[in-house]
């Protein structure tokens, strides 16, 4: 089962890279870009067929390694319908 995870900096954490990207986009003429937050994306393949178990495992993986919960939030985005 494939699981996708997105990790972003928490709202109150300064994201200077996101800010630079936003300003660059503005400079390129994308005037309507008001905010950019940069994050990380992971695709994980689990040898697990039970959806709930897979999701629980993904949560544990996020908490224990992929995200630093002091500064980051995680989202398990792909709802496991693909193979």
């Amino acid at each position: 089962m494939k699981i996708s995870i997105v990790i972003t900096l928490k709202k109150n954490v300064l994201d200077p890279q996101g800010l630079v990207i936003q300003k660059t986009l503005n400079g390129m003429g994308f005037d309507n870009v008001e905010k950019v937050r940069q994050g990380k994306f992971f695709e994980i393949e689990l040898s697990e067929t039970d959806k709930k178990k897979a999701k629980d495992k993904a949560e544990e993986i996020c908490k224990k390694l992929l995200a630093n919960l002091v500064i980051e939030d995680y989202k398990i985005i792909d709802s496991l319908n693909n193979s």
Partner: protein
Amino acid sequence: MKSSVIIFPGSNCDRDMDVALKKFGFKNQMIWHNDVDLPKNDLVVLPGGFSYGDYLRCGSIAAKSKIIHSLINYINSGGLVLGICNGFQILIETGLLPGALLRNKYLEFICKNVFVKIKDQKNNYFKDIKKDILKLHIAHNEGNFFCTQDEIKLIEDNDQIALYYSNDKGEINEKFNPNGSLKNIAGIFNKEKNVLGMMPHPERMIDKYLSGSDGSIFFETLLNNLK
């Protein structure tokens, strides 16, 4: 006095630290991250570098090393642990020190000499130190200390701030903050004050002809306090 330096894949200040510790009288040995047991020590150092290429987050992979279990036991029994630069990042990623180290505010790798002000001397690292403003070297990309308002209150209430970025007179303000660190923090302790993490490299300032000598003061003080 016995010390150990733990080497992770990608550590690159381990030998400098070994030279520094030996120069000031420590009997030092190098420990591989994959070892299970730490030998008996008076001090354990996590050196600077780029463990695991800074993959995922600086220090996050090294924080899961085998040796960390015995490092935690050693800390719980009161042992002294010093983390420099990447070593500081590793200590934060293990949860042994609070907060997080973010990318430098202006997105630049900073490599220069700075002044740091020692907050107080009520600990084994800085007790009776000759100077409370030291000139040390920093070289990092992720040294921007961050934590929540609640956490910084706890850190201050417990007197856990060890070092501030300052000028040569010890003035602490934004002008002398190289990386955007909250409150100019350059180093912090755990609650018990036996674990110290700091971004500056004292081991790079141990020869007055090559670099500077304030790192010597750091190591001499530490050794004296351990005797």
